[in-house]
Structures are given as C-alpha cells and as structure tokens.
C-alpha cells in the first residue's frame, strides 16, 4: 500500500532470519503449553518438554474443562467461564464508557483543574492493589455486594478506570481542537459532539481499550480470589487446579487449563489486533 515491493536483498534475508529467531523465542512458551496439553502424563514425566507428542490426546483438555477435581467439587473449570463472562463484559463496558467520557471531558472543554485531575489519574495507575483490599472489603459489605458478581463488576470498573481515562485522554488530546470548535459553532452540545463527531473517529482506540480491559479483567486473580463468591471466576479455579498441594502433578491437565483460560483473551487480542497499532497511531500513543 505504502510502497512498491522492493527487490529481495541479502541484507533483508539477514533481517528475516533475526526476526524469525525472535519469533521462536516469543512462541516458545505457547508451543510448550500446547504440546504439553496434548501429551499423556507419562510422556511428560519421562520425556523432554520440547518434544512433540507421540500419542496425541485431548483427554487433558476434556479433564481440565469438566472433569478435574478442584477442592470438594469435580466439575473442572467449566463453571467458572460463565462467572468470568458475567463479570468481565459489564466491567469492560463500564470502565471503557467512563474512560471515553472522562477522557473527552478532560481534553475538549478546558475545564479548570483538568491537569491536576489527570495527574491524580496517572498516580492511581501505580497504586498497589494490596494496599486497598481491606477498605474494599469493608465497603462492599456496607453495600451488601460482598461475594457477588455485581460487587466484582464494581471493583473492576473502579480499578480499571484510570487506565482507560489515560488512553482516551491521550487520544482525544491529539484530536485537532478545530473539529470540536466547528461542531460547537454548528450548535452541537457536549453529548452531541461526542456521539456524532468524535465517536466515529474513535473506534480504533475503543478497540484498544476494550482489548486491554478485557485482558486485565478476565485475567485478574487477586480481586477475584478475595471478593469472589462460592462460584469463583476461572482464574481462581485455574490456580486451584495448578496448585502445588499434595498429589500427582498433572502437568498436561494444568497446561490444558492454562490454554482454556487464556483462550478468550487471546481471541479478543487476535480480533482487536488489526486495530491495535492503528488505534495507537491516531494519537493514543502520545
């Protein structure tokens, strides 16, 4: 698109070789996980981690999905997926919506104190979550939301929000002020400008924000563990599955579990990947 196809050169071959090598390093963990998830246990204990399976089996995947015993129940990871989705989807929608609106309000309306507010957002991004677990627990109790899906949704919106505000703020600050000024002249108000003028420009950064939030919330362990109820999200189940308690360590089932739990986030990334660099190109990266 940008350039005509250049002639292949020796230098380029070298670059491709280096790139390929880097690719192998990046793919090594994925390879190990997949290969291990498809091997019988004996082949793992006695054999090499790198060897491809000689006898392929999907039994570990099936077991991790629905058969493995975790604590006093033997339902595998299956039940956690619904909980995780019920938490992740509204929490992603909420934190992205707040980020979108706040990032827009902070940049296009010259509010007094906008810079200070942004500074507070940045610092919020480095707060260690361990520091607030106790106040969160006591507050959820007050709200009657402790151990509920709604409670976790609220927690994830609250603690995902600084990151989305940062993303959208950096995106919208790159939008030329003339666009918004012109819309204002045409009589558009706060919401009208956002919905009719800026939103159509924003879908790449929306894709980035959704992908990042989905990953962060789907993969969360700490909040899910502490505030999850008797039907916890998949990450908590996965950690219990892989736990190093007493018993034979079924590496193949563990890795199958890793694969199953990682799959939705990987899928979202794969789908959003095309827009990823683009979303950042349009100003989000500044």
């Amino acid at each position: 698109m940008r350039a005509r196809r250049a002639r292949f050169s020796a230098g380029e071959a070298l670059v491709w070789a280096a790139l390929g090598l880097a690719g192998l390093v990046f793919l090594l963990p994925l390879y190990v996980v997949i290969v291990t998830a498809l091997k019988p246990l004996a082949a793992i204990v006695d054999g090499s981690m790198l060897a491809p399976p000689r006898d392929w089996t999907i039994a570990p995947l099936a077991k991790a999905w629905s058969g493995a015993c975790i604590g006093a129940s033997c339902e595998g990871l299956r039940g956690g997926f619904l909980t995780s989705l019920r938490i992740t989807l509204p929490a992603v929608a909420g934190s992205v919506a707040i980020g979108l609106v706040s990032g827009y309000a902070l940049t296009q309306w010259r509010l007094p104190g906008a810079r200070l507010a942004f500074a507070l957002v940045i610092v919020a991004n480095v707060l260690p979550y361990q520091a607030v677990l106790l106040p969160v627990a006591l507050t959820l109790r007050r709200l009657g939301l402790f151990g509920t899906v709604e409670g976790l949704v609220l927690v994830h919106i609250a603690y995902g929000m600084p990151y989305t505000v940062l993303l959208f703020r950096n995106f919208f600050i790159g939008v030329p002020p003339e666009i918004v000024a012109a819309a204002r002249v045409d009589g558009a108000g706060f919401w009208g400008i956002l919905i009719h003028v800026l939103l159509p420009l924003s879908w790449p950064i929306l894709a980035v924000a959704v992908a990042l939030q989905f990953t962060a919330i789907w993969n969360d362990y700490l909040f899910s563990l502490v505030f999850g109820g008797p039907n916890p999200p998949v990450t908590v189940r996965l950690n219990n599955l892989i736990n190093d308690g007493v018993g034979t360590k079924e590496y193949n089932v563990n890795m199958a579990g890793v694969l199953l739990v990682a799959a939705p986030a990987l899928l979202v990334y794969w789908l959003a990947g095309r827009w990823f660099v683009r979303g950042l190109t349009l100003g989000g990266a500044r």
Partner: protein
Amino acid sequence: MPTIDGLALDRRAFLIGALAAAAPTWSRAAGLTGLSGKRFEVVHWWAGGSESDAIRVVRRALEAEGGTWLDVTVQGPDLAKAAAMTRVLGGAAPGAMLWHVGPDLPRLVTDGVIRDVEAAAAAQGWDAILPAAVAAQMKVDGRYVAAPIDLHGANWMFAHRRRLEEAGAELPRTWDEAIAACERLRAAGTIPIALGGQPWQEALVFAQAVVGTGGADLMRRMCVEHDVSGDLPAVAAAFETFGRLRPFVDKGSPNRGPTDTANLVSSGRAGFLFTGDWSRGELEKAGLKAGADYLARPAPGNDGVFLAVVDAFCMPRAVSAPIAEAQDAFARLVMSPGVQHDFNLVKGSIPTRTDVDLARYDEGARAAARLTRGEGEVVASLSMGMTTAMRAALYEVVHRFWTTEGADPKRAASDLRDAIARTRA
C-alpha cells in the same frame, strides 16, 4: 481415563467409591439434625490430589445429613486464611473455615472472630479421646474452639530403597549417619536429598535437626515456651547440622513445590526426603510400595517423638442462628468416628480421635498412631506451637541461613533467639 492416570489412581478411585458406598451406614449413626436443609459454606485449602479426595469425604457426610455444601477452595493456607478473614470482615462469614491448630486460635477468639464448640466437645467427650498435647492447644479458657479433623507428623524421613541399596547406604538413625549416607548417594550419582527451597520446607528439616541434636526438650523450649536464650549452643549445633546438608541438595531446589520435590524420590532421582507424613500419600500415588520401593521412618534422631500438625475447622461467630446450629452439628460430624476414619485414610494422616480402629491403615500410620497413644512423646510442631508471625520470623532466619553459603550457625542461633523474642508479644 486409565491411560492418563495409571494404575495407582484407579486403585484410589476404587477405594473412594467403596467409601462412598459405605457412607450411609455411619453417617446415619451420627444423627445430626442441625445440618438438614442448611446451606453450609466451608473455606479450605485442600485443592487437589488426595487432599481434594479427602475433603469430599466430609462433603458427602454433610450431604448425607441433608445439608448443602458450598465449597470455597483457596490455594495455599495463607491465602485461604486471608480469604476467610476477608469474608468475615465483608459480612459474609462462612459456616466453617479451616485453620492450623496453634496460638492463632486464642487470638481469633479474643478478636471475636470465632465461637467455641464446647457443646459438641461436651456431647462427644473430646477430653477423653484427644491426645493431651493436642487438646491443650485447642482450648481457650477451658473451652474447645475448633474441631480437629486430622493429625499429621512433621518429622519423617522417606528413602528410595533401590537407590539406597545401590549406593551401599543404610537408613540412618542419626544425622551423622545421614550425612555419611548422603555422601555415598552422591558418589553413586543420585541427588542425596530432595528438598524444595521454600522457607516452610526448609524449616521442616531445621525442626527435625533441632529434635535430632537437642531432643524433644529443646524443641519444646523453642516451639511451646518460646524462649531459647538459655540454649544458644544447642540451637547453634542444630543450625550446624542443618547447614551440613546444604551440599546434598540439587540446584533445581529454589522455590520448588512439595509435589515436584516428592517426585524426585518417587522417580528415583533422589535418595532422601525429610518432610511430614503427608508425602507418604504422594509416594503411594506414584505407585511405590512401602517397604518394597520406599522406606519410611522417623527423621534421624527423632525416634519416639511425634511433631504434631493438626488441621481444624473453626466456626465464625457472625452467622445466623440456623447456621450456628449447623456449626455445632458440623463440629460433631468432623469428630464422628466414621468421618475421622475415612477422611484420614484417604489423606494419609491419622485420626485425631485416639479411639478409632486402624485395621485398614498401613503399618506406617499405625506406628505413628502408637506414638500418639502413649508410646511416644507428642510435641507441638512449628505450625502448632508458634503464631503465624513468629513462624514467619523463624522462616526468615532459617531461609537466610540455608541460602547463604558458609553462614555462621552461632549468628543464626542468636538471630533466631531475637526473632522469637521480638514476635512473642
């Protein structure tokens, strides 16, 4: 899925199936109406393997009483306790939470977190059926505050029989003999000691060295009386013995979990494993037979001493009246002979009740039980004798000593004295 799990698991599955079939006989005998129709939430850390099998014994017993089991499994005791506490703080106290028996219990009582289970204890006469050293740790102001479900010994030695014979080594009775045996194993190309470099695993071996060099009395002064200021030379000697084991551990040791560590012995790559009796279950699960494939006996110099670790269910205070009623029934269920027998058979521990018939237990477990039933001395282990804070401070001293090549045992001994004194308050 026999191709994956192998023969060992099949045997286990059969055993569990048989137990499940047998369940109604004894659970009806328990006759606990308090659980019927109740939704009872239990927080515990028994996530996988034989532990998961064992907790399901309790679950089925509760369900046989007409209750519904709400399972909250959290990996690892620290996290599980923290999660249970957060639940209490969050106003969603569980029906029961698993805890280690030790000095944390009085604190939980004085902080108003848990209630006593004296009603169940009086009804079942726990005073007469628990080992005195265990009972003493479970009472606050003379009232029982938790229902003990198992009894583990923390001072055992396991050895891979063939590796030992090939190296021409014998099962050691003292630490000097153990070190000689380790040298033979190393010469034969076997990893002499399987040890996971996590503070708690290292501390287990250190405690065995304390008993092995200073006897049960030194262990009691450290672990129960919490004062070793008069025993510095003896503690230093324990550290010295412990430090002599350093060269016999493989370099993959740091942060290795207990399962991978036990696997080193079950696969014949390592000779010795110094740990608690919970590892017996792993060796068995890997298909090894006691006597034929692996050997087990008390750690060097630990004969006649049983370092007790007890897991118990505590009952949070902030629950509704019907759940409080269910808590009393659950305490009695946990201490009922049927649950005690079947749970511990699966888990690899022994019943806390001394009146349970052990005919179906293996010889190792029966030998351990004899120690707790008058033939030996029951002493509190690190987990039973120390608060979490004191134990963590001890772990830090031991972990630093173990991971510092050439560390000074005398310095470690005085560090340990200070750590214990600092956390005694």
